């Protein structure tokens, strides 16, 4: 489970990107974050992954507060937190299977993985994760040859190889066609509901949020504008979220 308490982030230029931000994502739940450009969505994910150090607040991943961690303790904590990016961010010259198996590297130490090797057990597990996202047939193919939708599914398989408790996704369907976008969202919902992961997904596609999210959180100017189950979310509230950007 992911719990964000009173999170604030002020950039060195003085801009307040997040203020007094509270959010909980329970295991088995898919929460979608909506908001205009510059509203603080990506800053939120960067703080949770600790690519940024928040100015204030706590980020609880189970029983561990990520906010004050650094070095080896942060690396250890990150093992249970997986991230999917807008672009799949695979190593193009490596095989699909190798890309997936690298998700498990953090659990291994020693010369073999330090020299570029992958444990046989992780290769077998990676094949299973590829099967789960429907791409086992492409295991031996170079990652650079995949389509955008396929690459994103491989990135999800890599996240699964990490065996995370929490899965974060930063606009994972932004560059995909509607069919591929639907596939990815169904997969994320399956991971939340069937694999019991806590999934937090930033989106720009409002209809996808209505269709697949359990809960929708709206961000405006770094603060929560609404936090409602998708079935109770009024269209007017979403419209206002983007109107403020135009104004």
């Amino acid at each position: 489970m992911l719990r964000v308490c009173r999170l604030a982030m002020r950039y060195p230029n003085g801009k307040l990107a997040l203020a007094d931000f509270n959010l909980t994502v329970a295991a088995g739940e898919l929460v979608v974050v909506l908001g205009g450009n510059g509203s603080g969505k990506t800053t939120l994910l960067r703080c949770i992954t600790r690519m940024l150090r928040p100015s204030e607040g706590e980020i609880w991943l189970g029983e561990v507060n990520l906010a004050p961690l650094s070095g080896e303790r942060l690396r250890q904590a990150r093992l249970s937190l997986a991230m999917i990016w807008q672009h799949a961010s695979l190593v193009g010259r490596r095989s699909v299977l190798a890309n997936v198996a690298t998700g498990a590297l953090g659990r291994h130490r020693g010369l073999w993985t330090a020299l570029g090797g992958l444990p046989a057990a992780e290769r077998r597990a990676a094949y299973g994760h590829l099967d789960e996202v429907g791409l086992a047939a492409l295991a031996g193919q170079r990652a650079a040859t995949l389509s955008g939708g396929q690459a994103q599914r491989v990135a999800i398989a890599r996240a699964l190889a990490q065996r995370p408790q929490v899965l974060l996704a930063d606009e994972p369907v932004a560059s995909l066609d509607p069919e591929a976008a639907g596939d990815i969202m169904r997969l994320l919902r399956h991971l939340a509901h069937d694999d019991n992961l806590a999934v937090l997904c930033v989106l720009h596609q409002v209809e996808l949020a209505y269709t697949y999210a359990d809960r929708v959180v709206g961000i405006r100017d770094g603060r929560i504008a609404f936090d409602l189950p998708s079935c109770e979310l009024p269209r007017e509230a979403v419209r206002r979220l983007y109107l403020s950007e135009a104004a």
Partner: protein
Amino acid sequence: MSFAAAPSLAERSWAGAFGLALRLVMLLALVLIVIQSAVVVHARPQDLITGVYGMADIVRRATPPDFAKIDLVWWPALETVDIAVFGTLGGVVLALPLAIIAAANVTPSRYFYYAARGVIGFARAVPDLVWALFFVTAVGLGPFPGALALSVHSIGMLGRLFAETIEHMDMAPIDALSLTGARRVQVFTHGVIPSILPSLAGISLYRLDENIRSSLVLGFVGAGGIGFELFSAMSLFQYRLVSLYLIVTFVIVIAAERLSALIRARLA
């Protein structure tokens, strides 16, 4: 919709005159540069004309090449190639860790960054011929000082190109791998190296090609290989042997160039 006002006829003629004057000044500057360089190098074109007889005489004395002495060529030829191979491999092994430290996006610290850039810059700034003279003095005549000279000079050339390759690579897969909780060394061997390996191999092969040409010249200062034999043959006025060495040199250089281009094309 609004349009910018078109320049008047007077404005256009002023602009045209200014452009013409600027071109004339640039042409004059170019002519002055050429003249001063000819003065500084004591250029004497008439000497080229009178020197034609001397050159023709050397060509006459160098033909036909002395193929009967081909057995004398194999060993120096192998030495030449091996000086370049050793020099390039040594350069790659030493340049790669320096390049990692000297790449702004992956360097562990700014102090190490500047130190590594300094070492790379120094190794590159000193010509390989000077490194060869240094190592000949240090370890004596033969192919070994030549190989050492090429290694050290290659650190400079390869280190800079490797560092630039690392700096220009796509960092998204590297960041993604870091966030999985992979250790720094794992991120490097599983993310950075596979991403840049074809570029590194291409650069190294190009360097091998360059080093083969350089190793020929290093022989002139006593660093072994065909260059050393060529210099000895010239000093003894054995011009037919000189032409044989030159033919073998040509074959080695062309073969290395073609092989390097072929492998680089496959890696691309």
